[in-house]
Each structure stands twice: as C-alpha cells, then as structure tokens.
C-alpha cells in the first residue's frame, strides 16, 4: 500500500506550531545561557587587565585580588604616556599596519586567484611549496634573513617588517583566500567572461565584492598580527623612536622606575592601551560580518 498523506487539521497545525515555538524558545534560552557563561569566561581576563590598570600597585600586590579598584587611578594612563613614548609607538605600529594591509589584501588576493581559478603548469607543486613556507619553523631562517637585510642596509627600517605583505602577504593569507574563492561558483566568472571581461576585471568586479567577509577578516588578522608582533620588530629595530607597541610594552616591562617602585599597575595600563584600539577596530568591522552573500541569478 502506498503511504497516505495525512492532511493536518487546524488544531494539529496549531499544536505543531506551538510546539515548534516552544522548542525554539528553549533552544534559544540554552543558546543564550551558553553564550553568556562562555562570554564572561572569555571576557574576564580582559576585564581584569583593565581593572588592574586602574588600581594602585599596593592593591595589585595584595594576596587576594581586588576585583574593583578602590579609587580608579586614571593617572596610571597618564604616567604610561609620559614615562615612555607610547603614543609614538602606537603611531609607528599604525604606520606599519597601514602599509601592510593593502599589500596583503591585494597581492594575497592575486595569488589566491591564481591558485583558485587558473590551471597553470606546476600549480599543485607551487601550492604545496607555498604551504611549505608555513611549515619551516622561522627560527632557522631568521639569521640568514637578518644578514640579508643587513647587507641591503635595511636594518632599523620598517622594510623587513612590511615587505612580506606586498609579496603575497604570507601563506596563511593566500591559503584562506584561495579556499574562499573556490567556494564561489565558477559560473559567475564564466558569465562575466562571456560578457568580455578580462581576468583582472573578473577578479575586481565579480569576486572581490563577494569576498568582503574574507577580506575584512584578513584585514583584522593582519592588523592584529602586526599589532602584537614582537620578534620581528625586536630583531630589526634598534632605535627607541622606531619601536612598535609590542616591543615597547616589553621595553617598559624591563625598564626600572626612577623610584624603584613596582610598576605592575602601569604595565596593566600599557597592556590595556595595547588592547583597546584593536577592540575598537574589531567592533567597527563587525558590520561586514553581518552581510550575507546574495547570489542573484543563481539557479539551484
């Protein structure tokens, strides 16, 4: 016997709807609960950093920590900026980032485009080689690279720190963008091709607009990477004026205070100052994540 189709009565429909709504509400509740607990768990250390930055060093050195400062010591932040050229360091880091982000996005997309869309001789080999560059621990290429830049008289400049961005932006960038491009249907490329577009135009006018979430993500990651990068600037920069934020933070850590007092509270303030700009950038970039991908003209 063939299966009979059961036509729902109005009552059954209503009950099903109610059940569905209830299930969804419960699901939502647990979702919120889970997210909130985890959210607090993740946010606590940052909260702690900022809270510590507003305490005195005596409060910080207590046996049981104070979750809130007795009196917020805003002066700590003033001291950070007067003891060390922190503002200058932040500016330096922003300069490096401003040079690097366009470089990564442009040359990274180009390389990813090549790997994703073109069938050129040796493609798979090159792809593996590219991935391979990620797999050789950086320590052993550091000294030869340092000597290379030294011979080119580029020590104590920002060139060693930014040139990589303009030459592909790194394996991570290319890999990620390649995956992303490969998830965009080729039909869009072909449609544009038929309309007479060159590969460059296809990339710029068809693919890149669709890649906004990926590109935004990459921009944020590049920002974060350079903002927190310690070893590169450490090795290549010698002059205090040129230091970046990560190097400056460490410098500040090892620098003794004139009064020989502990400076934990100032370090926390410096760490907060290090963190807050990235947080702002991240919050501002949120809207680019919300955009869905609209595939007009796509037939399922």
């Amino acid at each position, binding site marked *: 016997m063939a299966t009979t189709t059961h036509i729902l009565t109005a009552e059954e429909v209503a009950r099903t709807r109610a059940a569905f709504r209830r299930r969804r509400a419960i699901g939502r509740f647990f979702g919120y609960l889970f997210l909130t607990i985890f959210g607090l768990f993740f946010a606590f250390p940052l909260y702690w950093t900022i809270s510590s930055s507003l305490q005195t060093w*005596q409060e910080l050195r207590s*046996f*049981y920590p104070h979750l809130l400062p007795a009196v917020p010591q805003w002066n700590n932040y003033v001291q950070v900026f007067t003891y060390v050229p922190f503002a200058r360091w932040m500016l330096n880091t922003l300069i490096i980032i401003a040079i690097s982000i366009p470089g990564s996005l442009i040359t990274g997309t180009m390389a990813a485009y090549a790997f994703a869309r073109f069938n050129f001789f040796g493609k798979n080999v090159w792809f593996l080689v590219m991935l391979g560059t990620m797999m050789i621990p950086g320590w052993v290429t550091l000294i030869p690279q340092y000597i290379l830049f030294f011979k080119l008289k580029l020590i104590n400049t920002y060139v060693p720190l930014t040139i990589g961005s303009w030459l592909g932006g790194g394996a991570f960038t290319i890999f990620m963008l390649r995956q992303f491009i490969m998830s965009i249907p080729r039909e869009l490329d072909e449609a544009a091709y038929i309309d007479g577009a060159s590969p460059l135009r296809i990339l710029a006018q068809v693919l890149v607009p669709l890649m906004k979430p990926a590109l935004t993500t990459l921009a944020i990651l590049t920002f974060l990477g350079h903002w927190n990068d310690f070893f590169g600037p450490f*090795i290549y920069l010698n002059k205090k004026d040129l230091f970046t934020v990560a190097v400056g933070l460490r410098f500040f850590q*090892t620098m003794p205070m004139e009064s020989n007092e502990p400076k934990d509270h100032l370090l926390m303030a410096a760490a907060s100052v290090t963190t807050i700009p990235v947080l702002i950038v991240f919050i501002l970039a949120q809207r680019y994540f919300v955009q869905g991908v609209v595939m007009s003209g796509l037939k399922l």
Partner: protein
Amino acid sequence: METRLSRRTLLKAGALLAGGVLAGCAPKVVEVTKIVEKPVEKIVEKTVVVEKEKVVKETVVQEKVVKETVVVDAAAKRAEVKGKIVWDTFRANPPWDKDRLDSFKQLYPNVEVELRMGVADQQANYAKWYAMEAAGDLGDVLQFDPSHFHFWRAADKNIIMPIDDLVAADNTDLTQWYEQFVNMSRYKGKLWGLPSWGWSGFDCLVVNEVALNEIGVKELPDPQQYAVTWDQILEWIHKSHKASGDKVERYGFNWAGGEAGFTVMCRWFGGELINPEGTKTVFQDDEKALKGLRMVYDLVVKEKLAPAPGALGQGVSNEIACAEGRLTMYHCGSLCAVNAQKAVKDNTKAKITVILFPKREDGKIPSQIRGGAWQVHKTSKYPMIAYQFIKHLTSKEGCLGFNLFGGNTALVRPDVLPLLIAQIPMYKHFLNNLANGMVIHAPANSRGREYTDAIAQNGAKLMDAIKPVPFEQGVKEMAAEIQKVLDTPPA
C-alpha cells in the same frame, strides 16, 4: 591615595638626596690640573770603610730627589681624543643611561657614544646580539654576563677582547672593585671585563621575623655573626609551618631551584655540584653535598613544608607570600631581601630580615657570587675609548647611580657600599659575603646554557612534591644528565 603620594614624594626626595650626595662625591671633572712628580736625579751611595773596630771613613752621599712640577691639562688632553663607539646594553636604565652618556661627554667632548638599548629580557637580547655579530654589526661596549654563562663563549669566539693591556696602559687600580667580582671576568689567564652588576647570590634565607616571634623566638642575632645554626633553622621551619589538613596557612620554607640554588645547596655542608674545572659532576658521590640536598628533599618532598613551584606572577611570589605572613623563610639573597622588604605593607604581619648560612667546617661561606661585566668588542676601532667608557660606567658615581636609579643591584665596589647602605640598610648584612663569597664553577666546554637548563629541569624533578621520585634515583638521573652536558664537545 594620600599615603601613596607622600611615599612617592619621600622616595623622590630620597633620589634627589642621593643625587646631591653623588654631586658632592663627584670630582670636578671639567678642569683638572694634574701635578706630576718627576724625579730628576737620584743618587744613593753609602760607603763605609771599617778597619779593625775602628771606623775610618764614612762617606755618605745624600739622595737627591728633585721634584719638578709639570702641569698637565687633563681636560685638554681628553678633548683631543676623537672617535665613535656604540654601546649595546641589554636593559634600558633610562635616567642612568643618560646620566652616564652626559657625564662622559663632559669628559671627552669630541667622542660620540651611540646607545642602542636592549628591549626585552636578557636571553632574547643575547639572541639579537648574536645575530648582529653574525652580520658584523655588534657595538664596541658589550655585556656578556658571566652569571648567564655567555661570557666564556664570547671570549672563546673572539667577540670580546682581553683588557689587560688597556688596564696597564691606563694604570687602573683594580682593587677599587671587590676582587671576587673582578675575578669573574678572568679566564685563560687574562682579564676580559670590568664588573657591572653583582651580588653575593643565594647566600641567605630571607626571613619573616614576625613569624618567628610567634613561635617564641625573641630576636634574631646580627646576621654577620653567623650565629644561627642549622638545627635552629630546621626547628623554626617545622614549628612555624601552619597547616590544617590540606589547607596550608603558612609554609615554613621555600627552596631555590636553578643552577645557583642547587650549587649553594651542595655547598652548605662542604660539598660542590661540579668540580672547579667544570668537567665532572661531583655531588652524587659526595656525602657532604648530598647532605644539603637530602635536607631540602626531606623538607620539600617528604614533609611538604614548601609551596608548589612554578607559582609566579601577581600576588604569589616568594616575596609577597613572605610579606603577607604566608611563608616563613626562603632561600635567596640580598636582592630578594630588599624586594621582600618593599613588599611588606602591614608591619604586624611581616618584618623582613635575613639569616646568612652558617659557615662551613672549612670556614667558607656557602654562596655563589653572581655578577655581570662590561666588555670591549674584539674588533673595536677605538678600544681605549671603549675601555674608558666602561671604566666610567663602573666608576664610583656610575656604580652608585646604577644601583639607585638604574634599577640594578651592583654591590661591586667597596667605596659604594656605605652610600648604598645609607639608602638600603639591608645591604649591610652582606658586606662580609661580598668580599669572601664562593665563586662560580663554569662548564669547561662553555655550554653554560645547556648546563643551566639541565639543572633546572632535573632538579625540579628531584624536588617534586606532587609526583615524588626516590632521592637516590633523582640524584643519579640529575648527575647523569648534567654530566652529559659537560661531556658535549665545546661550543
């Protein structure tokens, strides 16, 4: 808030006072005329002719010394010196760096000194320096510290130069520094640098006197009398340890791991960790060395009187635990005692003092002199200028400043100690140890870094209270691992 301000003001006043003291001590360096005594003639002759109990002729010709006053304008001579040196230092000491550069500029107006300051902790900086040396970019004034074991390698690899000739040419009086600290820079029969920072290292127990008062100890004797005995120390540790079940309110003791800690532990009762030549481990067969290790093992592993290691960071370091009354005493040195004192906020909970380790049967003081050194690059174009600069860094004024506002502990000059003690009374307990402490035994193959790691890691295993290993096994493994490092071909 108000208390904080006034304390800061006090400290600022103290720093200013120190500056004033410094200014008072500093010789007027701008114009110094030097008076040189130049003997012109010196005749000594005495002839006595004696003939059978009768003095016949006595001829004495007097010694004639003619003093000639030659005025040498030292300042002008110094102004003739021209050159440029680069100063690579691993740690920023801002007011002190500038102070030294400025005062050196006054002495040698035509010499340019470029400061390239280090950024991070010492180990990372050494990495950068080696890279710079490979590229040929390393500066003239360097800092490869003996206590970090980089010194011997730097000497072997021709990064730094022996300074004996420079010392002789300059007629430097090496006794202005404690001999121990100068000797740290001696190697292969030569002198390679002048002392920078230094302390008598891990030679005492930092003690919270209030905790001892609670168990009936009225007052501790003057540390420099070395009057406290090991039996008393053990008794006090046991009595002051307060625990109820799993929860510990106060630990009686904490030990010091790492290369310095273990070396001194072996030295307590007359033993050694490795032989002076740095080729063999000797502690595993030496009952005297083992006595010290076994004592700590019993306290830490068997009786669990020490807190868990690896607990660094805010709020739970030895100093703070001690200052809060949660730790009676711990193995450290002058440096730590001062830090612990600074951490005390409540005088009813803690009063920091020290107990220097009792002298051994052979009269020596269990310790390990620790220090750094300023050196000159082997291929420096201006070695004499570099040498004058490092002399300037470690002169009386330089050393004092290095301590007071350079953030270092540089107890390397006898003439600076009284001034420091006026600021930091704790240092007076260590005067004898600074002059008479025991020296470091460095691995002969210059593999000091591997040596340090081997001791730290295997030592941690030996003294692991959470997953204990039998004492004999721990000692055997540790000795074997360290010997492996000592047997490695030279770096």
